[in-house]
């Protein structure tokens, strides 16, 4: 299998840490995505590495017993360490604050602390087997203040830092889940819900395992993912992932079922809004996209893997350190190892090897694996880094070798423009609201985000259509059909077509002498009126005489191009027509007499010159009470010419009052 076939990969630059061993304990904090390597209980050093910061934090702390859990608050302000089942120790990492440790014991008597989660830089939640306690840490006073608590029997808990929701497992079967939501010093209890466990013989008592639950944000919504090893209803034996939507308000609802069609050991990740399901037995993974069309049975939507199962791309562990000899080749990393631990959303940790990777989706290989272009577009348009891939898909479908049929091309364009139109609409309402001064007062007004899925006309023109038109080997019929299809699609979504697209159409038609086709397009106003287009048409007149008429019509419709119309007519020596036109629109008092007289003289038609001259004499009379031209009009030479041809007496006499 070549590299182009793998659509999942481990990030190139993993976070490297000291392997877990009897003296070195490794912890992972899901909130800050930091790995803690704690040697000898901290006495010989703690090294903290995050994914973004390449400079690890290292410090020492006294060995006061086995560390059960260790986490920084957000922004690395305060360190919390749990060493006993009753207490958590704190240590400030804020400059000018005392670094002496201080301790908080859980309030509930006889309770055991299962763990703790930071919800902000100074707020922490203790989860005990009898409930949760929400504290504010006051680092300068080195004390904690209880903000709120709630009593409930807890089997296990789960924290989703992105949405600040803690999920508690309650009841004997462990399958009733109680979510809490934390925000700015408040703790709110959300409606609890029950996970449907698979039907099982009465003798075996099945309970919900923490391992089979995950929480992740997908397309901006929080979901609880439940890995159900045996389908409840259907007789299919495969496992499935059930997605419960957990809204901020309202009850949790079962929404999607991802059919895995296999059994065994699974692990879940969420990458770029895709649910990735790893299968250890086959050492492959599949991906699901809940936005792609699935089978809806009235309550839930069933999804199948978007693509055939593939392994994560093989990964070579570089021989790190200066000791490494150059001749030593990198060692292949064992993928899907049983020592892997998977965290949400996209983290894979190999504690035994000392690596933390982010899982990534590669879009290029998917292009080949998803032959249905419509579905491929639906898929790509939802991905973060999709722009270049989509553009290359578009270019490819127009290439000689992989040429798609027009209906497929139309579908792809429609999907692009659907996204594009959504953005344009959002932009418009945003601008409108901003103009009305609501931007600050209206919190509902979302900030305008332009994702990579927004491919505007300029993108498509530059990267797809312009190079496509340049290709000599393309039959021109196909080229024009594609351009028209794109224009049709834009029109269908009521997007104003940019003139450079029209120019591209005209250029192509002119190159192939398809003037009559061009004429028909203009006749039905397929190519929208604009001054640049009208000028382009004018320039075509020598090849195709009707272009003159088309151009004048267009200038007329624009209604802002009256000067241009006059210029065009004068250049054609249609002086009288120009004058009649300007008079028709009431602009004849402001035109330059010299310009018209020049043009009239050039025609060498004396009668025409006479008519034009007389017209301006009359205008002078009307405006200034005298038929004479003023020196500012620079018409001396024309007056002389008039006298020479028609005689002095032909000049209009001033009417006196």
């Amino acid at each position: 299998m070549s590299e182009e076939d793998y659509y999942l990969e481990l990030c190139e630059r993993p976070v490297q840490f000291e392997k877990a061993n009897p003296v070195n304990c490794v912890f992972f904090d899901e909130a800050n995505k930091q790995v803690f390597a704690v040697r000898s209980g901290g006495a010989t050093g703690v090294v903290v590495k995050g994914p973004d910061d390449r400079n690890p934090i290292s410090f020492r702390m006294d060995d006061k017993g086995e560390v059960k859990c260790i986490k920084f608050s957000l922004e690395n302000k305060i360190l919390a360490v749990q060493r006993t089942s009753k207490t958590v120790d704190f240590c400030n990492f804020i400059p000018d604050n005392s670094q002496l440790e201080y301790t908080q014991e859980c309030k509930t008597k006889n309770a055991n602390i299962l763990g703790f989660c930071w919800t902000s830089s100074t707020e922490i939640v203790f989860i005990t087997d009898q409930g949760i306690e929400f504290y504010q840490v006051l680092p300068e006073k080195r004390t904690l203040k209880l903000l709120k608590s709630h009593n409930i029997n807890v089997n296990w808990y789960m924290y989703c830092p992105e949405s600040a929701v803690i999920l508690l497992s309650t009841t004997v079967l462990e399958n009733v889940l109680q979510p809490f939501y934390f925000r700015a010093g408040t703790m709110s209890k959300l409606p609890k819900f029950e996970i449907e466990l698979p039907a099982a013989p009465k003798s075996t008592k099945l309970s919900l395992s923490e391992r089979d639950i995950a929480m992740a944000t997908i397309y901006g919504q929080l979901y609880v993912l439940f890995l159900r090893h045996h389908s409840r209803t259907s007789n299919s034996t495969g496992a499935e992932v059930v997605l419960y939507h957990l809204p901020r308000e309202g009850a949790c609802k079962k929404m999607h079922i991802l059919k895995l069609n296999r059994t065994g050991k699974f692990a879940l990740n969420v990458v770029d809004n895709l649910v990735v399901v790893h299968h250890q037995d086959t050492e492959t993974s599949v991906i699901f996209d809940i936005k792609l069309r699935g089978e809806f049975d009235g309550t839930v939507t069933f999804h199948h893997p978007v693509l055939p199962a593939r392994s994560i791309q093989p990964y070579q562990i570089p021989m790190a350190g200066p000791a490494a000899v150059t001749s030593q080749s990198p060692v292949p990393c064992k993928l899907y190892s049983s020592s892997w631990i998977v965290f949400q959303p996209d983290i894979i940790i190999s504690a035994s090897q000392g690596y933390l990777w982010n899982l990534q989706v590669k879009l290029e290989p998917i292009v080949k694996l998803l032959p249905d272009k419509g579905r491929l577009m639906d898929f790509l348009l939802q991905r973060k880094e999709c722009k270049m891939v989509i553009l290359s898909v578009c270019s490819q479908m127009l290439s000689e070798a992989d040429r798609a049929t027009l209906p497929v091309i139309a579908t792809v364009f429609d999907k692009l423009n659907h996204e594009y139109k959504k953005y344009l609409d959002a932009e418009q309402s945003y601008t409108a609201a901003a103009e009305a001064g609501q931007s600050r007062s209206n919190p509902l007004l979302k900030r305008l985000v332009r994702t990579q899925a927004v491919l505007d006309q300029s993108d498509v023109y530059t990267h797809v259509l312009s190079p496509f038109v340049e290709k000599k080997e393309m039959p021109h019929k196909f080229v024009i059909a594609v351009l028209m299809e794109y224009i049709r699609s834009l029109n269908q979504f009521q997007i104003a077509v940019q003139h450079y697209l029209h120019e591209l159409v005209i250029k192509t038609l002119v190159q192939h002498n398809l003037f009559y086709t061009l004429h028909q397009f203009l006749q039905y106003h397929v190519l929208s009126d604009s001054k640049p287009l009208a000028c382009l048409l004018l320039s075509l007149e020598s090849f195709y005489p009707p272009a003159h008429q088309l151009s004048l019509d267009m200038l007329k419709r624009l209604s802002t191009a009256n000067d241009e119309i006059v210029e065009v007519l004068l250049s054609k020596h249609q002086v009288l027509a120009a004058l009649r036109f300007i008079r028709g629109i009431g602009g004849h008092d402001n035109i330059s007499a010299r310009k018209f007289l020049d043009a009239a003289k050039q025609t060498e038609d004396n009668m025409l010159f006479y008519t034009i001259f007389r017209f301006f004499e009359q205008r002078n009379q009307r405006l200034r009470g005298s038929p004479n031209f003023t020196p500012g009009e620079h018409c001396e030479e024309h007056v002389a010419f008039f006298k020479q041809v028609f005689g002095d007496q032909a000049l209009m006499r001033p009417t006196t009052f």
Partner: protein
Amino acid sequence: MAAATAGAGAGAWAAQEKQFPPALLSFFIYNPRFGPREGEEENKILFYHPNEVEKNEKIRNVGLCEAIVQFTRTFSPSKPAKSLHTQKNRQFFNEPEENFWMVMVVRNPIIEKQSKDGKPIVEYQEEELLDKVYSSVLQQCYSMYKLFNGTFLKAMEDGGVKLLKERLEKFFHRYLQTLHLQSCDLLDIFGGISFFPLDKMTYLKIQSFINRMEESLNIVKYTAFLYNDQLIWSGLEQDDMRILYKYLTTSLFPRHIEPELAGRDSPIRAEMPGNLQHYGRFLTGPLNLNDPEAKCRFPKIFVNTDDTYEELHLIVYKAMSAAVCFMIDASIQLTLDFCRRLDSIVGPQLTVLASDICEQFNINKRMSGSEKEPQFKFIYFNHMNLAEKSTIHMRKTPSVSLTSVHPDLMKILGDINSDFTRVDEDEEIIVKAMSDYWVVGKKSDQRELYVILNQKNANLIEVNEEVKKLCATQFNNIFFLD
């Protein structure tokens, strides 16, 4: 068929008068090079109608035309005589290909009066016929022949005079019967194309449809699309489309109108292939696709005869009011399988498209408001795109084109047109006609507009204002000088 009612366009009959419209007296085609020597004159004649005419008279008539053309050439070498006026008839000459002459002789309209002693007096109306109208009709005869047979020269190359004579005989024998000389008018001069008004989006949909069809049927060379007998798209060049359009709208479509008007249960419709998925059917080619014996023979047409000289099959396929012409290289053998494939691909999509167009058309019509019967009627023609619009003419029928105005007014229109032809510049002519009628002709660049107004006691200024208003409402999106 040929016995179209006399005086169809001749207005009320005076009590003691009988009117006879213009009629075709003879029509012949000759080439003076084919019988230059005495005694061989008969060889010049390639076609002669009526055929019953005695040989020597044929030779005499051809000789006379030859002489006239030759004689007048002395005065105007570049523009030989186009017509010859006599008391009883008018002769029109046309040389469509070098040395090939077509002559049409039309009898002037006649008024037959009863004299006091009861004897009929025949009066020829020498000034009634318009040269330009009938010259155009003659040119059209050639264009139509060429569309279905190619050039004279090509026939000569293919099979000599014998083949040419056969083709001429075969074609004109039938075609001349369909000439309706009594109802020819200005529109024959224009030979225009009526375009179907359409919004941009629907037009783009049609474009998209045509491109897809050409792609899936991959052998199609050109496509034309019509709706309601009006053109929307032509892949053919303008001149070829012009004559094809004429054929479609005056011959092919009218012939097929009856089965469409017939109800679903009528026996005519029962003969058509029962198809529940769509309304598509072939107007040329096989009638019934389910009949394995069905013949896949399509009319052949010749286009671009000036350069590439292409011979094509003409497939006309129609669903409801939408008709598509697919033109395919004649060297390709068309099979029943192909026809079935075409039917299955085009039929359903064309049906949907036709109803889309219909719907859009009705929306547009409603938006433009309820149109009251305006006080004026007009004919518009644009030489650049051959666009023609007439509110004077009723729907074309295969036999006659009905006009809603008096023939005298039609004649004024023709006269104004002749005036326009004489000069290059834009101009405007206003004519006061009988009984409160005004006729206005305007020419701006390549466009011509003829308006007939009927307003009691109107004066020149008012008429001018009316026409300005008309231009502002009907032609506001084009550059039309006033």
